[in-house]
């Protein structure tokens, strides 16, 4: 079911721009179609307690945890499809595919793009964006014994829109993303049964490059 949904969605997405071009009258004349497809890097860190190998002596002492920090880099692609409400503001739906370690999340968000500053007409402009939505795990493969659930995501960003001569534009955005996901594990068939639910809030600094047409 979910696979067919993805295929239909892709079909609609590839169809929409052509629809916009061919029938640039009526609705799409008033509210022009816009697509912004971006490739992104998600920079984050993990801080975790590691084993403390320091010799502590024979007598027990207060335990001081030792933390270790590791950088994490994840990949993301997303496509925003929407319409211009006015020359400065566009709204639409953002569909992305993000990887967080072994987890692949597919967030669906409501998105808004608004240009803030443009010095002269046809020049580059400062563009802000906000995507708020929910990530699904439709593309995820589970580690055995686990069940992954997606969650809320919010992604504000700010960047530059660099128009090209042909009407398209390059996009460079930097932003921030919070993505929630839950991982549950259940083993109830033996004596020492175990149940766990891990809530992960992935917090990432986002750099995105893309194109608008």
């Amino acid at each position: 079911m979910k696979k067919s949904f993805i295929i239909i969605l892709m079909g609609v997405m590839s169809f929409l721009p052509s629809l916009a071009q061919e029938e640039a009258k009526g609705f799409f004349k008033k509210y022009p179609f816009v697509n912004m497809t971006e490739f992104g890097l998600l920079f984050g860190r993990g801080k975790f307690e590691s084993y403390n190998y320091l010799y502590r002596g024979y007598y027990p002492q207060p335990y001081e945890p030792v933390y270790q920090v590791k950088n994490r880099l994840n990949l993301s692609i997303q496509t925003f499809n929407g319409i211009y409400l006015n020359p400065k503001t566009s709204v639409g739906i953002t569909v992305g595919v993000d990887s967080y370690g072994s987890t692949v999340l597919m967030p669906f968000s409501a998105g808004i793009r608004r240009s803030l500053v443009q010095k002269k007409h046809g020049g580059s402009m400062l563009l802000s964006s906000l995507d708020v939505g929910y990530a699904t795990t439709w593309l995820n493969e589970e580690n055995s014994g686990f069940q992954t659930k997606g969650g809320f995501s919010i992604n504000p960003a700010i960047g530059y829109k660099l128009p090209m001569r042909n009407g398209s534009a390059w996009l460079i955005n930097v932003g921030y993303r919070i993505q929630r996901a839950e991982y549950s594990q259940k083993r109830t068939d033996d004596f020492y049964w175990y149940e766990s639910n891990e809530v992960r809030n992935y917090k990432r600094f986002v750099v995105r490059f893309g194109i608008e047409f």
Partner: protein
Amino acid sequence: MKKLLPIGVFAFVALTLSSCTDDCETTRTYRTTVPVTISVEQIRSGISAKTPQDLVNPGKIYAKDNYLFINEVKKGIHIIDNSNPQQPKNIAFLQIPGVIDMAVKENTLYADNYIDLVTFDISNPLAIKETGRVKEVFQNGLVDGISWYYNPQNQTITDYEVKIITEKIKTNCGIENTTINPIYYLQDGFKSSAPSASSGGGTTTTGTGGSMARFTLYDNYLYTVSQSDLLVFDVKTSNKPTQQSKINLGWGIETIFPYKDKLFIGSNTGMYIFDNKNPEKPERLSIFQHARACDPVIVHNDIAYVTLRTGWCGTSPNQLDVVNVANLTSPTLIKSYQMQHPAGLGIDFPNLFVCESQYGLKSFDASSATNITLQQHIEKIDAYDVIPLEGKHLLMVGKDGLYQYDTSNPKNLKQLSVIPVKREN
């Protein structure tokens, strides 16, 4: 406005950079065992007669005349007046720390009190009195997969309590390992457990035990099996048991069943047959070996019925083995029957009753050992152990309570009554 914007952008970027650390928290719930130390004085002074209490975690059952004794694992013994099986009355509770097994001879109840064997006068079940005690005869014990052991040096017993722990911990967000949280055990107990079989001594003065019994009475002797040893007590004077001998049997002993002048002892690797002509010193005749499994055994007419099941004791096919023991020195397998998850069993020839744990209770026609046929299957109850009593009366205990059946028609058992288990959670 235009001047403020770059500052705003800078502030935004700075803010986002400052908190790009993942934040992960796991809520986990698990069952574990926590060690508890109990002193010998606490154990010995912990015995008292109490008002009737609800069944919470029933263990073995024992029937004597019109009374039923139901073990509340490691807590005590419920005493049930069963003169009317349709309306059993819970009349008293005898608190005994660490009690797992019991047996009754005349008016004397034998029970274990962790390390000690204690005798009680039960002539008036409403006022039970402790009459004797043999000290420090058991060194360790095991029930429900949890073992305890005695430390003679500091006179303490270490037992384990099962606890369900729910905790919240910060985790590493899966940075290091692919499994989010490997499963750790606080303690790894001995993983073998205890259902075992017997339907008890046939003499009129003693009662009848269930197939979980490790205590059995024969003639003037009380036999008890621990994990590794067979202990023989002389109970000619009911309230003054004296230890006669101790026979090492190896590890994994589960059950004792007296049949004629023989003792059938089930371990999780096989069935031992002991000659009991001299009750003070049973002699080993033979062993019938099988796959490693939990295996209660009962015997009737030179035919032994052994159930094997997967569990703490090992993994093996779930089955019922019928063994010819006419020649005691070389028992031979007659036939194996497929079962679901058999635990205790009992025979009221030609009817054989097998408890199938969560799959219910089965009634078989065992008139021909080579062709045992199913007569009835009572589903949707948890069946752990049965005792067939005289007068077509069957006692069955499971996780949900003690059931009594009228077995005059083995194809259609009639439920007489239930004493329900009241569980806390």
